[in-house]
């Protein structure tokens, strides 16, 4: 139901991002989509990868703070108002959006990853909006 997102704490200094991508590359882990939140001191890298558990393991082995978080993946058709439909349902249920980022597979659908204040209610919002979920296997194999 939920997609496992791999999150990594990265200090703002040269070479850290390279080290993360190198570690994943060496272990044949594909990055499906990526988002980097930045603050003045550090960055928070959030990714959907082909093998989240293994990704976390190899990053931790390299000394990174890495964790897995359950997030909701939603398919959004390419027409205006699709995202608005979803956010309307979310706010109707009193949900707060902690963060979100988009990815696309180049086909008819775009997809969006959402972390909200309540993951269970978020599923209801998706249903109410008449949208469909990105199932984990689908997300990892893109």
């Amino acid at each position: 139901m939920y997609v496992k997102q791999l999150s990594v704490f990265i200090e703002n200094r040269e070479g850290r991002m390279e080290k993360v991508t190198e570690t994943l590359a060496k272990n044949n882990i594909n990055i499906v989509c990526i988002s980097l939140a930045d603050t003045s001191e550090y960055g928070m890298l959030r990714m959907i990868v082909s093998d989240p558990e293994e990704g976390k393991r190899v990053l931790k082995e390299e000394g990174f703070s890495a964790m897995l978080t359950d997030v909701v993946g939603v398919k959004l058709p390419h027409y205006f108002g699709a995202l608005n439909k979803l956010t309307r349902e979310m706010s109707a249920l009193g949900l707060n959006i902690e963060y979100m980022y988009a990815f696309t597979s180049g086909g008819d659908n775009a997809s969006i990853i959402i972390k909200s204040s309540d993951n269970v209610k978020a599923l209801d919002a998706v249903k109410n909006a008449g949208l469909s979920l990105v199932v984990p296997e689908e997300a990892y194999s893109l």
Partner: protein
Amino acid sequence: MIWNESRECMSRDEMMTMQGKRLAKQVNNVYHNVEFYRKKMQQLGIEPGDITRIEDISKLPYTTKDDLRDNYPFGLLAVPQSQIVRVHASSGTTGKATVVSYTRKDIEVWSECVTRELVMCGLGIDDVIQVAYGYGLFTGGLGLHYGAENLGCTTVPMSTGNTKRLVTMMEDFGATAIACTPSYLLHIGEVIEEMNALDRIKLKVAICGAEPWTETMRLQIEEKLHIHAHDIYGLSEICGPGVAADCIYHKGLHVQEDHYYPEIVSPDTLNPIADGEVGELVFTTLTKEGMPLIRYRTKDLTSIDRTPCECGRTLPRISRFKGRTDDMLIIRGVNVFPSQVEAALLEMGEVTPHYLMIVDRVNNLDTLEVQVEVEERFFSDEVKELENLTKKISAVLQSALQIAVKVKLVEPRSLERSMGKAVRVIDKRKLV
């Protein structure tokens, strides 16, 4: 178990009588054999005959680290150099190294003191101890080594360097004790965790010293490694580790005062300070032959308790060190000790005991940045949560230190791990 009951449990009266006799003899010795002390005593108008009781010690001049540097390397010897069997030196961060020389008897007395303390920590002939202090000019390695051998422990001279090998041997040899700096022990703990070796090792006691650490850190080490951790204190000028250590009751460090006589004085006025009050620790080596020191100012800040201990020893106890007058930073006019930062951080529980203080001066204003490693279990992928954590740490430090503190979260294990004395402070201020 007590190694030398007749000395360690001596009544105060008997001890003071013995100390008085030893002091009179030592003063006579330095007056006749060390030009430095003869001149100093002559300037003050004191003769050896004026010193008959231990109370007379307050008439004597002080010795400082500068005096040791001025007389580098062998100017303070009280015996011909042919009687010196060993030399140690402490790294001089400023200028020349401080060199100390030992006769065969000095080594024996030093070993005896370390042995008493290892027994105090619960060790006996069946124990296997890994000595993971540096071996060499530094007194830590050889000091603990000789004390452990003298006791009859199976002594493994690991020194520092390869931590994985240390853990492998800890497991293979069934080591029950380790001696190292507290910060190195934390690192060893991490490696034990990485190697999933905690269930396979037999470690029960750690004897840690050579750098100040807090009671909270001691308890955290005990909990994490399921061991008893003891504090051992010493300084090369007096002998090295072995001057004092804490017993199983952990209510201060017992000083081996039949050999190393402690006083607490005000660092400003140099007047004696009452028992229980914090001041600078001063030592007189009552029995040392090679390089005896009279009223040596250690720059370490502590207080003394002369009441008997639950363990049965009458040796007085000095409290855990508040820091060294040398370590004290003055930031915007406020006195700050790294130990305060450590205690505040550890009480929060959300960060590891690894931290680095960076002091700088920006636009003529002192700034303090404290870098801390985020504990894995408190890590969050939400920036909001990490910012809350940063704010919380800042607030805790600010209330502990009474100055503004900028907190920077860093990746776990990114702060440098030391095998010897940990670097906790970088002072970038350029004072002109």
